[in-house]
Protein backbone atom coordinates (compact mmCIF):
# COMPACT_ATOMS: atom_id res chain seq x y z
CA UNK A 1 0.00 0.00 0.00
CA UNK A 2 2.80 2.40 0.95
CA UNK A 3 4.84 1.23 -2.03
CA UNK A 4 1.80 1.93 -4.22
CA UNK A 5 1.56 5.45 -2.78
CA UNK A 6 5.25 6.13 -3.37
CA UNK A 7 4.99 4.81 -6.94
CA UNK A 8 2.08 7.17 -7.63
CA UNK A 9 4.06 10.09 -6.27
CA UNK A 10 7.27 9.27 -8.13
CA UNK A 11 5.37 8.78 -11.34
CA UNK A 12 4.50 12.49 -11.34
CA UNK A 13 8.16 13.46 -11.33
CA UNK A 14 7.72 17.19 -11.88
CA UNK A 15 5.37 17.65 -8.95
CA UNK A 16 7.38 15.32 -6.76
CA UNK A 17 10.51 17.34 -7.48
CA UNK A 18 8.69 20.65 -6.94
CA UNK A 19 7.43 19.54 -3.55
CA UNK A 20 10.79 18.15 -2.43
CA UNK A 21 12.62 21.29 -3.55
CA UNK A 22 10.04 23.56 -1.91
CA UNK A 23 10.51 21.77 1.40
CA UNK A 24 14.27 21.82 0.88
CA UNK A 25 14.17 25.56 0.20
CA UNK A 26 12.10 26.18 3.32
CA UNK A 27 14.44 24.00 5.38
CA UNK A 28 17.50 25.75 3.97
CA UNK A 29 16.23 29.30 4.42
CA UNK A 30 14.85 28.80 7.91
CA UNK A 31 17.83 26.88 9.26
CA UNK A 32 20.37 29.08 7.53
CA UNK A 33 18.84 32.31 8.78
CA UNK A 34 18.09 30.94 12.23
CA UNK A 35 21.65 29.66 12.63
CA UNK A 36 23.04 33.01 11.44
CA UNK A 37 20.80 34.77 13.93
CA UNK A 38 21.79 32.49 16.79
CA UNK A 39 25.46 32.72 15.84
CA UNK A 40 25.41 36.51 15.57
CA UNK A 41 23.59 36.92 18.85
CA UNK A 42 25.96 34.42 20.46
CA UNK A 43 28.80 36.63 19.27
CA UNK A 44 27.48 39.42 21.49
CA UNK A 45 28.86 37.38 24.40
CA UNK A 46 32.09 36.21 22.73
CA UNK A 47 34.51 38.35 24.75
CA UNK A 48 32.62 37.61 27.96
CA UNK A 49 32.98 33.87 27.38
CA UNK A 50 36.64 34.31 26.48
CA UNK A 51 37.43 35.48 30.03
CA UNK A 52 37.01 31.93 31.22
CA UNK A 53 38.29 32.52 34.74
CA UNK A 54 35.73 35.18 35.71
CA UNK A 55 32.40 34.32 37.32
CA UNK A 56 31.21 37.89 37.88
CA UNK A 57 31.24 41.06 35.83
CA UNK A 58 30.77 44.41 37.58
CA UNK A 59 30.02 47.55 35.57
CA UNK A 60 28.45 50.98 35.63
CA UNK A 61 24.65 50.78 35.84
CA UNK A 62 24.31 52.43 32.41
CA UNK A 63 26.29 49.65 30.74
CA UNK A 64 23.94 47.36 28.83
CA UNK A 65 26.29 45.14 26.88
CA UNK A 66 29.96 44.31 26.41
CA UNK A 67 30.36 46.56 23.41
CA UNK A 68 28.86 49.71 24.92
CA UNK A 69 30.41 50.08 28.32
CA UNK A 70 30.96 53.11 30.52
CA UNK A 71 34.21 52.72 32.52
CA UNK A 72 34.27 52.44 36.30
CA UNK A 73 36.36 54.40 38.79
CA UNK A 74 39.85 52.96 39.42
CA UNK A 75 38.86 52.19 43.02
CA UNK A 76 36.12 49.83 41.86
CA UNK A 77 38.48 46.84 41.87
CA UNK A 78 39.38 47.33 45.53
CA UNK A 79 35.71 47.83 46.40
CA UNK A 80 34.68 44.57 44.74
CA UNK A 81 37.56 42.69 46.36
CA UNK A 82 36.16 43.70 49.73
CA UNK A 83 32.87 41.83 49.34
CA UNK A 84 32.45 38.48 51.09
CA UNK A 85 32.23 35.66 48.56
CA UNK A 86 34.69 37.28 46.14
CA UNK A 87 37.88 35.26 45.78
CA UNK A 88 39.65 37.77 43.56
CA UNK A 89 38.76 40.82 41.43
CA UNK A 90 40.71 42.41 38.58
CA UNK A 91 40.34 45.36 36.25
CA UNK A 92 39.33 44.55 32.68
CA UNK A 93 40.20 47.18 30.14
CA UNK A 94 38.52 47.14 26.77
CA UNK A 95 38.79 50.02 24.33
CA UNK A 96 37.40 50.49 20.84
CA UNK A 97 39.92 52.57 18.96
CA UNK A 98 41.51 53.08 15.54
CA UNK A 99 44.43 51.09 14.27
CA UNK A 100 46.56 51.32 11.16
CA UNK A 101 49.00 48.98 9.48
CA UNK A 102 52.28 49.73 7.76
CA UNK A 103 50.52 49.65 4.42
CA UNK A 104 48.09 52.28 5.66
CA UNK A 105 45.09 50.00 6.16
CA UNK A 106 42.77 51.49 8.78
CA UNK A 107 40.20 49.86 11.00
CA UNK A 108 38.39 50.28 14.28
CA UNK A 109 39.66 47.59 16.66
CA UNK A 110 38.71 46.27 20.07
CA UNK A 111 41.75 46.48 22.29
CA UNK A 112 41.79 44.24 25.36
CA UNK A 113 44.33 44.50 28.16
CA UNK A 114 45.38 41.32 29.95
CA UNK A 115 46.86 41.72 33.45
CA UNK A 116 50.31 40.20 33.41
CA UNK A 117 50.24 39.09 37.06
CA UNK A 118 47.04 37.06 36.85
CA UNK A 119 46.88 36.42 33.05
CA UNK A 120 43.11 36.42 33.40
CA UNK A 121 41.54 36.75 29.97
CA UNK A 122 44.69 35.66 28.16
CA UNK A 123 43.73 34.42 24.71
CA UNK A 124 44.22 30.90 23.43
CA UNK A 125 46.65 31.12 20.55
CA UNK A 126 46.45 29.83 17.01
CA UNK A 127 49.93 31.02 16.13
CA UNK A 128 52.56 32.12 18.64
CA UNK A 129 52.75 32.20 22.43
CA UNK A 130 50.28 34.23 24.51
CA UNK A 131 52.91 35.18 27.04
CA UNK A 132 54.61 37.30 24.39
CA UNK A 133 51.94 39.95 24.74
CA UNK A 134 53.51 40.90 28.08
CA UNK A 135 56.61 42.10 26.27
CA UNK A 136 56.71 45.84 25.72
CA UNK A 137 55.00 47.08 22.54
CA UNK A 138 53.63 43.64 21.71
CA UNK A 139 50.21 42.52 20.66
CA UNK A 140 48.37 39.54 19.21
CA UNK A 141 45.50 39.79 16.77
CA UNK A 142 42.56 37.52 15.97
CA UNK A 143 42.03 35.83 12.55
CA UNK A 144 39.25 38.28 11.64
CA UNK A 145 41.64 41.14 12.29
CA UNK A 146 44.35 39.51 10.19
CA UNK A 147 41.93 39.16 7.35
CA UNK A 148 40.66 42.73 7.66
CA UNK A 149 43.92 44.56 8.28
CA UNK A 150 46.29 42.33 6.30
CA UNK A 151 44.13 41.03 3.47
CA UNK A 152 45.67 38.19 1.53
CA UNK A 153 48.64 37.93 3.89
CA UNK A 154 49.64 35.16 6.23
CA UNK A 155 50.89 36.07 9.67
CA UNK A 156 54.62 36.57 10.00
CA UNK A 157 56.44 37.63 13.16
CA UNK A 158 57.34 41.27 13.16
CA UNK A 159 54.22 42.60 11.50
CA UNK A 160 53.40 46.03 12.87
CA UNK A 161 50.21 47.75 13.93
CA UNK A 162 49.89 51.38 14.95
CA UNK A 163 47.54 52.29 17.77
CA UNK A 164 47.41 55.82 19.17
CA UNK A 165 50.67 56.84 17.58
CA UNK A 166 52.53 53.81 18.92
CA UNK A 167 53.76 50.98 16.75
CA UNK A 168 53.22 47.55 18.27
CA UNK A 169 54.73 44.30 17.02
CA UNK A 170 52.34 41.45 16.37
CA UNK A 171 53.58 38.31 18.12
CA UNK A 172 50.90 35.86 17.06
CA UNK A 173 47.32 35.14 16.08
CA UNK A 174 44.83 34.44 18.83
CA UNK A 175 41.72 32.29 18.75
CA UNK A 176 39.57 35.04 20.27
CA UNK A 177 35.92 34.30 19.67
CA UNK A 178 34.54 36.35 16.79
CA UNK A 179 32.86 39.52 18.10
CA UNK A 180 29.40 40.71 17.08
CA UNK A 181 30.83 44.04 15.91
CA UNK A 182 33.23 42.37 13.49
CA UNK A 183 36.08 44.57 14.75
CA UNK A 184 39.53 42.99 14.99
CA UNK A 185 40.34 41.85 18.53
CA UNK A 186 43.80 42.92 19.63
CA UNK A 187 45.14 41.63 22.94
CA UNK A 188 47.93 43.51 24.71
CA UNK A 189 49.15 43.55 28.29
CA UNK A 190 47.10 45.57 30.73
CA UNK A 191 49.99 48.00 31.14
CA UNK A 192 50.23 48.54 27.39
CA UNK A 193 46.48 48.99 27.12
CA UNK A 194 46.53 51.62 29.88
CA UNK A 195 49.38 53.42 28.18
CA UNK A 196 47.58 53.43 24.84
CA UNK A 197 44.42 54.64 26.56
CA UNK A 198 46.15 57.36 28.51
CA UNK A 199 43.92 60.07 27.11
CA UNK A 200 41.05 58.64 29.16
CA UNK A 201 40.83 59.19 32.86
CA UNK A 202 39.22 55.84 33.58
CA UNK A 203 40.91 52.56 32.68
CA UNK A 204 38.60 50.01 34.21
CA UNK A 205 35.88 49.11 31.77
CA UNK A 206 34.70 46.24 33.93
CA UNK A 207 35.75 44.55 37.12
CA UNK A 208 35.93 40.81 36.62
CA UNK A 209 35.81 38.62 39.69
CA UNK A 210 35.90 35.00 40.76
CA UNK A 211 33.45 33.69 43.33
CA UNK A 212 34.90 32.06 46.41
CA UNK A 213 34.20 28.36 46.76
CA UNK A 214 30.66 27.81 48.05
CA UNK A 215 29.64 31.43 47.57
CA UNK A 216 26.17 32.13 46.26
CA UNK A 217 26.41 34.09 43.02
CA UNK A 218 22.95 35.65 43.33
CA UNK A 219 23.66 36.80 46.86
CA UNK A 220 27.07 38.24 46.01
CA UNK A 221 25.87 40.12 42.92
CA UNK A 222 22.91 41.47 44.87
CA UNK A 223 25.13 42.70 47.68
CA UNK A 224 27.56 44.37 45.26
CA UNK A 225 24.75 46.06 43.39
CA UNK A 226 22.97 47.24 46.53
CA UNK A 227 26.09 48.54 48.22
CA UNK A 228 27.74 50.25 45.24
CA UNK A 229 24.91 51.11 42.89
CA UNK A 230 26.83 49.32 40.12
CA UNK A 231 25.54 46.50 38.04
CA UNK A 232 26.90 43.09 39.05
CA UNK A 233 26.12 40.14 36.82
CA UNK A 234 27.19 36.56 36.52
CA UNK A 235 28.86 35.63 33.23
CA UNK A 236 25.65 34.01 31.99
CA UNK A 237 23.57 37.04 33.00
CA UNK A 238 25.96 39.40 31.23
CA UNK A 239 25.87 37.26 28.08
CA UNK A 240 22.08 37.24 28.21
CA UNK A 241 22.00 41.00 28.74
CA UNK A 242 24.26 41.58 25.72
CA UNK A 243 22.06 39.23 23.65
CA UNK A 244 18.95 41.11 24.77
CA UNK A 245 20.50 44.50 24.06
CA UNK A 246 21.15 43.62 20.41
CA UNK A 247 17.84 41.81 20.06
CA UNK A 248 16.08 44.95 21.24
CA UNK A 249 17.94 46.98 18.60
CA UNK A 250 15.97 45.14 15.91
CA UNK A 251 18.92 43.05 14.72
CA UNK A 252 16.82 39.85 14.48
CA UNK A 253 13.97 41.41 12.52
CA UNK A 254 15.48 40.85 9.08
CA UNK A 255 16.21 37.27 10.01
CA UNK A 256 12.65 36.79 11.26
CA UNK A 257 11.30 38.15 7.97
CA UNK A 258 13.47 35.79 5.91
CA UNK A 259 12.59 32.83 8.12
CA UNK A 260 8.89 33.63 7.80
CA UNK A 261 9.12 34.08 4.03
CA UNK A 262 11.01 30.79 3.76
CA UNK A 263 8.37 28.98 5.74
CA UNK A 264 5.45 30.51 3.86
CA UNK A 265 6.93 30.02 0.40
CA UNK A 266 8.05 26.46 1.09
CA UNK A 267 4.85 25.36 2.71
CA UNK A 268 2.58 27.18 0.25
CA UNK A 269 4.41 25.63 -2.70
CA UNK A 270 4.29 22.19 -1.18
CA UNK A 271 0.66 22.44 -0.12
CA UNK A 272 -0.47 23.82 -3.46
CA UNK A 273 1.49 21.24 -5.43
CA UNK A 274 0.17 18.43 -3.26
CA UNK A 275 -3.34 19.69 -3.85
CA UNK A 276 -2.70 19.73 -7.62
CA UNK A 277 -1.30 16.22 -7.39
CA UNK A 278 -4.45 15.02 -5.68
CA UNK A 279 -6.69 16.82 -8.17
CA UNK A 280 -4.86 15.38 -11.15
CA UNK A 281 -4.95 11.92 -9.61
CA UNK A 282 -8.60 12.19 -8.64
CA UNK A 283 -9.57 9.41 -11.08
CA UNK A 284 -6.89 7.14 -9.65
CA UNK A 285 -8.01 7.82 -6.07
CA UNK A 286 -11.66 7.30 -7.04
CA UNK A 287 -10.75 4.01 -8.69
CA UNK A 288 -8.91 2.92 -5.56
CA UNK A 289 -12.00 3.77 -3.50
CA UNK A 290 -14.20 1.70 -5.80
CA UNK A 291 -11.77 -1.20 -5.70
CA UNK A 292 -12.09 -1.35 -1.94
CA UNK A 293 -9.53 1.00 -0.44
CA UNK A 294 -10.91 2.42 2.80
CA UNK A 295 -10.41 6.01 3.90
CA UNK A 296 -7.86 5.02 6.57
CA UNK A 297 -5.89 3.14 3.91
CA UNK A 298 -5.97 6.16 1.62
CA UNK A 299 -4.95 8.37 4.55
CA UNK A 300 -1.94 6.13 5.21
CA UNK A 301 -1.02 6.35 1.52
CA UNK A 302 -1.19 10.13 1.50
CA UNK A 303 0.69 10.34 4.79
CA UNK A 304 3.39 8.15 3.26
CA UNK A 305 3.57 10.43 0.23
CA UNK A 306 3.78 13.57 2.38
CA UNK A 307 6.35 11.93 4.67
CA UNK A 308 8.58 11.01 1.74
CA UNK A 309 8.44 14.59 0.47
CA UNK A 310 9.19 15.93 3.95
CA UNK A 311 12.05 13.52 4.67
CA UNK A 312 13.73 14.09 1.31
CA UNK A 313 13.15 17.86 1.38
CA UNK A 314 14.39 18.29 4.93
CA UNK A 315 17.41 16.09 4.26
CA UNK A 316 18.40 18.05 1.17
CA UNK A 317 17.71 21.40 2.86
CA UNK A 318 19.66 20.45 5.98
CA UNK A 319 22.56 19.11 3.93
CA UNK A 320 22.67 22.43 2.08
CA UNK A 321 22.72 24.33 5.37
CA UNK A 322 25.49 22.14 6.78
CA UNK A 323 27.52 22.60 3.60
CA UNK A 324 27.09 26.39 3.51
CA UNK A 325 27.77 26.69 7.24
CA UNK A 326 31.00 24.71 6.94
CA UNK A 327 31.99 26.76 3.92
CA UNK A 328 31.17 30.07 5.61
CA UNK A 329 33.15 29.08 8.70
CA UNK A 330 36.31 29.14 6.64
CA UNK A 331 35.82 32.91 6.23
CA UNK A 332 37.29 34.84 9.19
CA UNK A 333 34.21 36.93 9.88
CA UNK A 334 31.96 33.84 10.00
CA UNK A 335 34.22 31.84 12.29
CA UNK A 336 31.52 31.90 14.94
CA UNK A 337 28.88 30.46 12.65
CA UNK A 338 27.45 27.12 13.67
CA UNK A 339 24.26 25.15 13.21
CA UNK A 340 22.74 24.42 16.63
CA UNK A 341 20.89 21.12 16.71
CA UNK A 342 18.00 22.95 18.38
CA UNK A 343 17.62 25.12 15.26
CA UNK A 344 17.58 22.05 13.01
CA UNK A 345 15.12 20.23 15.25
CA UNK A 346 12.77 23.22 15.57
CA UNK A 347 12.82 24.20 11.90
CA UNK A 348 12.44 20.62 10.66
CA UNK A 349 9.63 19.91 13.12
CA UNK A 350 7.68 23.01 12.10
CA UNK A 351 8.15 22.42 8.36
CA UNK A 352 7.42 18.71 8.69
CA UNK A 353 4.25 19.19 10.72
CA UNK A 354 2.88 21.97 8.56
CA UNK A 355 3.62 20.08 5.34
CA UNK A 356 1.90 16.97 6.64
CA UNK A 357 -1.02 19.19 7.69
CA UNK A 358 -1.15 20.62 4.16
CA UNK A 359 -1.25 17.06 2.85
CA UNK A 360 -4.04 16.40 5.32
CA UNK A 361 -6.02 19.24 3.78
CA UNK A 362 -5.51 17.63 0.39
CA UNK A 363 -6.78 14.38 1.85
CA UNK A 364 -10.06 16.18 2.47
CA UNK A 365 -10.38 16.37 -1.32
CA UNK A 366 -9.94 12.61 -1.51
CA UNK A 367 -12.56 12.10 1.17
CA UNK A 368 -14.99 14.11 -0.92
CA UNK A 369 -14.44 12.12 -4.11
CA UNK A 370 -17.63 10.32 -5.11
CA UNK A 371 -16.96 6.67 -5.98
CA UNK A 372 -19.88 6.67 -8.42
CA UNK A 373 -18.00 9.23 -10.53
CA UNK A 374 -15.72 6.39 -11.60
CA UNK A 375 -18.22 5.55 -14.34
CA UNK A 376 -17.97 9.01 -15.87
CA UNK A 377 -15.99 8.88 -19.07
Amino acid at each position, binding site marked *: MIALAIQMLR*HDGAKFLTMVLAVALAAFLTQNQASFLVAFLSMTGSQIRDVREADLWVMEPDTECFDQAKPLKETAVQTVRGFPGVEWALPFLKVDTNARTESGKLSVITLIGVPEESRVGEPIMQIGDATEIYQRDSAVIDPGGMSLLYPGQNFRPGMKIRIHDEWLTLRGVSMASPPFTGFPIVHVSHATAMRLNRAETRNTTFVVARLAAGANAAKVTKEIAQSTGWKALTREQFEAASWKFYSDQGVPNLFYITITVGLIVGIAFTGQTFLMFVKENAR*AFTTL*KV*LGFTHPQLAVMMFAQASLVVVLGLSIGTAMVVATTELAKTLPFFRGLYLPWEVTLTCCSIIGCVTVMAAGMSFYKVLKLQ*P*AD*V*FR*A
Partner: protein
Amino acid sequence: MNAVDCQKIEKSFGQGETQTKVLRGIDFTAAQGEMTFLVGPSGCGKTTLISIIAGLLGSDSGSVSLFGESLSSLSARDQILFRRRHLGFVFQQYNLLPALTAAENAAVPLFAAGMNRKLAVKKATDLLGALGIGHRADASPRLLSGGQQQRVALARALVHEPRLIICDEPTAALDHKSGESVMELLSSSAVHPDRAVVVVTHDNRVFHFAHRIAHMDDGVITHTESPTTQLSHH
Protein backbone atom coordinates in the same frame (compact mmCIF):
# COMPACT_ATOMS: atom_id res chain seq x y z
CA MET B 1 -30.73 -17.21 -5.24
CA ASN B 2 -30.11 -14.37 -7.65
CA ALA B 3 -26.74 -12.71 -7.60
CA VAL B 4 -28.38 -9.31 -7.93
CA ASP B 5 -31.89 -8.59 -6.81
CA CYS B 6 -33.14 -5.00 -7.09
CA GLN B 7 -36.67 -4.19 -6.01
CA LYS B 8 -38.48 -0.94 -6.79
CA ILE B 9 -35.33 1.18 -6.95
CA GLU B 10 -35.97 4.89 -7.21
CA LYS B 11 -33.34 7.60 -7.52
CA SER B 12 -33.56 11.33 -8.15
CA PHE B 13 -30.89 13.99 -8.55
CA GLY B 14 -31.27 17.68 -7.74
CA GLN B 15 -33.94 19.40 -5.71
CA GLY B 16 -37.12 21.36 -6.31
CA GLU B 17 -37.79 22.38 -9.88
CA THR B 18 -34.44 21.02 -11.05
CA GLN B 19 -35.08 17.59 -9.59
CA THR B 20 -34.70 14.80 -12.12
CA LYS B 21 -36.00 11.34 -11.46
CA VAL B 22 -33.47 8.94 -12.99
CA LEU B 23 -34.74 5.60 -11.78
CA ARG B 24 -38.49 5.03 -11.44
CA GLY B 25 -39.12 1.90 -9.44
CA ILE B 26 -36.71 -0.48 -11.16
CA ASP B 27 -36.91 -4.22 -10.62
CA PHE B 28 -33.77 -5.95 -11.88
CA THR B 29 -32.20 -9.33 -11.33
CA ALA B 30 -29.01 -10.99 -12.49
CA ALA B 31 -28.52 -14.69 -12.05
CA GLN B 32 -25.35 -16.53 -11.07
CA GLY B 33 -23.64 -18.28 -13.94
CA GLU B 34 -25.01 -15.74 -16.40
CA MET B 35 -23.88 -12.64 -18.19
CA THR B 36 -26.65 -10.06 -18.03
CA PHE B 37 -26.55 -7.05 -20.31
CA LEU B 38 -28.12 -3.75 -19.37
CA VAL B 39 -28.79 -1.72 -22.50
CA GLY B 40 -30.56 1.46 -23.36
CA PRO B 41 -30.06 5.00 -24.67
CA SER B 42 -27.75 7.48 -23.01
CA GLY B 43 -29.26 9.04 -19.91
CA CYS B 44 -31.75 6.26 -19.33
CA GLY B 45 -30.23 5.46 -15.91
CA LYS B 46 -27.98 2.46 -16.62
CA THR B 47 -24.92 3.91 -14.89
CA THR B 48 -26.98 5.08 -11.95
CA LEU B 49 -28.42 1.58 -11.58
CA ILE B 50 -25.04 -0.17 -11.61
CA SER B 51 -23.68 2.45 -9.19
CA ILE B 52 -26.48 1.55 -6.80
CA ILE B 53 -25.93 -2.18 -7.34
CA ALA B 54 -22.22 -1.72 -6.58
CA GLY B 55 -22.99 0.24 -3.44
CA LEU B 56 -21.31 3.34 -4.81
CA LEU B 57 -24.53 5.33 -4.66
CA GLY B 58 -27.52 5.11 -2.36
CA SER B 59 -31.06 4.76 -3.67
CA ASP B 60 -33.97 6.95 -2.54
CA SER B 61 -36.15 3.91 -2.06
CA GLY B 62 -36.28 0.22 -2.85
CA SER B 63 -33.85 -2.51 -1.91
CA VAL B 64 -30.72 -4.09 -3.36
CA SER B 65 -29.56 -7.55 -2.37
CA LEU B 66 -26.35 -9.15 -3.59
CA PHE B 67 -26.21 -12.91 -3.05
CA GLY B 68 -28.94 -12.56 -0.47
CA GLU B 69 -27.14 -9.81 1.48
CA SER B 70 -29.08 -6.56 1.71
CA LEU B 71 -26.71 -3.66 1.00
CA SER B 72 -28.74 -1.26 3.13
CA SER B 73 -28.18 -3.46 6.17
CA LEU B 74 -24.41 -2.95 5.90
CA SER B 75 -22.54 -0.02 7.42
CA ALA B 76 -20.58 2.24 5.07
CA ARG B 77 -17.35 0.48 6.03
CA ASP B 78 -18.86 -2.98 5.62
CA GLN B 79 -20.14 -1.97 2.19
CA ILE B 80 -16.57 -1.12 1.20
CA LEU B 81 -15.31 -4.43 2.55
CA PHE B 82 -18.16 -6.29 0.83
CA ARG B 83 -17.33 -4.53 -2.45
CA ARG B 84 -13.63 -5.28 -2.02
CA ARG B 85 -14.30 -8.96 -1.43
CA HIS B 86 -17.18 -9.74 -3.76
CA LEU B 87 -17.19 -7.22 -6.62
CA GLY B 88 -14.96 -6.73 -9.63
CA PHE B 89 -15.11 -3.81 -12.06
CA VAL B 90 -14.29 -3.19 -15.69
CA PHE B 91 -14.52 0.44 -16.82
CA GLN B 92 -14.96 2.04 -20.19
CA GLN B 93 -11.70 4.00 -19.82
CA TYR B 94 -9.91 1.07 -18.12
CA ASN B 95 -8.96 3.28 -15.15
CA LEU B 96 -5.51 1.77 -14.84
CA LEU B 97 -3.07 3.60 -12.60
CA PRO B 98 -0.35 5.02 -14.87
CA ALA B 99 2.28 4.75 -12.14
CA LEU B 100 1.94 0.97 -11.91
CA THR B 101 2.92 -1.84 -14.25
CA ALA B 102 0.24 -4.02 -15.83
CA ALA B 103 0.78 -6.72 -13.18
CA GLU B 104 0.66 -4.22 -10.34
CA ASN B 105 -2.54 -2.73 -11.75
CA ALA B 106 -4.10 -6.15 -11.90
CA ALA B 107 -3.02 -6.75 -8.30
CA VAL B 108 -4.63 -3.58 -6.88
CA PRO B 109 -7.65 -5.38 -5.31
CA LEU B 110 -5.20 -7.72 -3.58
CA PHE B 111 -3.22 -4.72 -2.29
CA ALA B 112 -6.46 -3.31 -0.92
CA ALA B 113 -7.07 -6.60 0.87
CA GLY B 114 -3.62 -6.38 2.43
CA MET B 115 -2.01 -9.28 0.57
CA ASN B 116 1.78 -9.40 0.50
CA ARG B 117 2.93 -7.33 -2.46
CA LYS B 118 5.11 -10.03 -4.02
CA LEU B 119 2.41 -12.68 -3.76
CA ALA B 120 -0.22 -10.30 -5.12
CA VAL B 121 1.88 -9.36 -8.14
CA LYS B 122 2.72 -13.03 -8.76
CA LYS B 123 -0.94 -13.96 -8.71
CA ALA B 124 -1.82 -11.08 -11.01
CA THR B 125 1.00 -11.98 -13.39
CA ASP B 126 -0.25 -15.57 -13.59
CA LEU B 127 -3.73 -14.30 -14.39
CA LEU B 128 -2.39 -11.95 -17.06
CA GLY B 129 -0.71 -15.01 -18.57
CA ALA B 130 -4.01 -16.85 -18.60
CA LEU B 131 -5.60 -13.87 -20.35
CA GLY B 132 -2.88 -13.93 -23.00
CA ILE B 133 -1.00 -10.82 -21.91
CA GLY B 134 1.59 -12.27 -19.57
CA HIS B 135 4.41 -11.01 -21.77
CA ARG B 136 3.37 -7.41 -21.01
CA ALA B 137 3.10 -7.86 -17.24
CA ASP B 138 5.93 -5.42 -16.54
CA ALA B 139 4.79 -2.83 -19.08
CA SER B 140 3.41 0.56 -18.16
CA PRO B 141 -0.26 1.01 -19.18
CA ARG B 142 0.68 3.82 -21.57
CA LEU B 143 2.69 1.32 -23.60
CA LEU B 144 -0.29 -1.01 -24.03
CA SER B 145 -2.94 -0.92 -26.73
CA GLY B 146 -6.56 -0.32 -25.79
CA GLY B 147 -7.35 -4.03 -26.05
CA GLN B 148 -4.36 -4.91 -23.89
CA GLN B 149 -5.31 -2.31 -21.30
CA GLN B 150 -8.82 -3.72 -21.13
CA ARG B 151 -7.37 -7.21 -20.61
CA VAL B 152 -5.35 -5.84 -17.70
CA ALA B 153 -8.55 -4.27 -16.35
CA LEU B 154 -10.28 -7.62 -16.77
CA ALA B 155 -7.48 -9.29 -14.84
CA ARG B 156 -7.94 -6.68 -12.11
CA ALA B 157 -11.65 -7.50 -12.01
CA LEU B 158 -10.97 -11.23 -11.68
CA VAL B 159 -7.81 -11.43 -9.58
CA HIS B 160 -9.56 -11.57 -6.21
CA GLU B 161 -12.17 -14.04 -7.47
CA PRO B 162 -15.23 -11.86 -6.90
CA ARG B 163 -18.80 -13.17 -7.18
CA LEU B 164 -20.11 -10.24 -9.18
CA ILE B 165 -18.38 -8.44 -12.02
CA ILE B 166 -19.74 -5.10 -13.18
CA CYS B 167 -18.63 -3.90 -16.59
CA ASP B 168 -19.36 -0.40 -17.78
CA GLU B 169 -19.16 -0.13 -21.57
CA PRO B 170 -16.13 -2.46 -21.71
CA THR B 171 -15.86 -2.33 -25.51
CA ALA B 172 -16.79 1.32 -26.12
CA ALA B 173 -13.22 2.50 -26.48
CA LEU B 174 -12.12 -0.47 -28.59
CA ASP B 175 -12.33 -1.34 -32.25
CA HIS B 176 -14.61 -4.21 -33.19
CA LYS B 177 -11.91 -6.88 -33.24
CA SER B 178 -10.46 -5.88 -29.86
CA GLY B 179 -13.96 -5.52 -28.39
CA GLU B 180 -14.92 -8.97 -29.61
CA SER B 181 -11.71 -10.38 -28.19
CA VAL B 182 -12.27 -8.76 -24.79
CA MET B 183 -15.87 -10.01 -24.67
CA GLU B 184 -14.71 -13.52 -25.55
CA LEU B 185 -12.26 -13.39 -22.70
CA LEU B 186 -14.90 -11.99 -20.38
CA SER B 187 -17.30 -14.71 -21.41
CA SER B 188 -14.78 -17.50 -21.02
CA SER B 189 -13.04 -16.37 -17.87
CA ALA B 190 -15.64 -14.43 -15.91
CA VAL B 191 -18.74 -16.49 -16.37
CA HIS B 192 -18.79 -19.11 -13.68
CA PRO B 193 -21.62 -20.99 -11.88
CA ASP B 194 -20.95 -19.03 -8.66
CA ARG B 195 -20.52 -15.69 -10.33
CA ALA B 196 -22.66 -13.17 -12.18
CA VAL B 197 -21.57 -10.65 -14.74
CA VAL B 198 -23.52 -7.45 -15.40
CA VAL B 199 -22.51 -5.54 -18.49
CA VAL B 200 -23.71 -2.07 -19.39
CA THR B 201 -23.22 -1.52 -23.10
CA HIS B 202 -24.39 0.29 -26.20
CA ASP B 203 -22.47 -2.02 -28.46
CA ASN B 204 -25.04 -4.26 -30.16
CA ARG B 205 -22.24 -6.13 -31.93
CA VAL B 206 -21.49 -7.95 -28.68
CA PHE B 207 -25.08 -8.68 -27.61
CA HIS B 208 -24.65 -12.31 -28.61
CA PHE B 209 -22.43 -12.86 -25.60
CA ALA B 210 -25.34 -12.13 -23.23
CA HIS B 211 -27.47 -14.75 -21.55
CA ARG B 212 -30.09 -12.10 -20.86
CA ILE B 213 -30.54 -8.52 -21.97
CA ALA B 214 -32.46 -6.00 -19.89
CA HIS B 215 -33.62 -2.96 -21.83
CA MET B 216 -33.87 0.32 -19.98
CA ASP B 217 -35.51 3.52 -21.01
CA ASP B 218 -36.37 6.63 -19.04
CA GLY B 219 -35.56 5.05 -15.68
CA VAL B 220 -37.43 1.78 -16.07
CA ILE B 221 -36.67 -1.70 -17.41
CA THR B 222 -38.92 -1.90 -20.41
CA HIS B 223 -38.36 -5.57 -21.17
CA THR B 224 -35.91 -8.42 -20.76
CA GLU B 225 -35.10 -10.89 -23.47
CA SER B 226 -32.63 -13.44 -24.74
CA PRO B 227 -29.94 -12.32 -27.20
CA THR B 228 -31.31 -14.41 -29.99
CA THR B 229 -34.54 -12.40 -29.89
CA GLN B 230 -32.55 -9.17 -29.73
CA LEU B 231 -30.35 -10.16 -32.63
CA SER B 232 -33.37 -10.94 -34.73
CA HIS B 233 -34.38 -7.23 -34.42
CA HIS B 234 -31.15 -6.15 -36.13
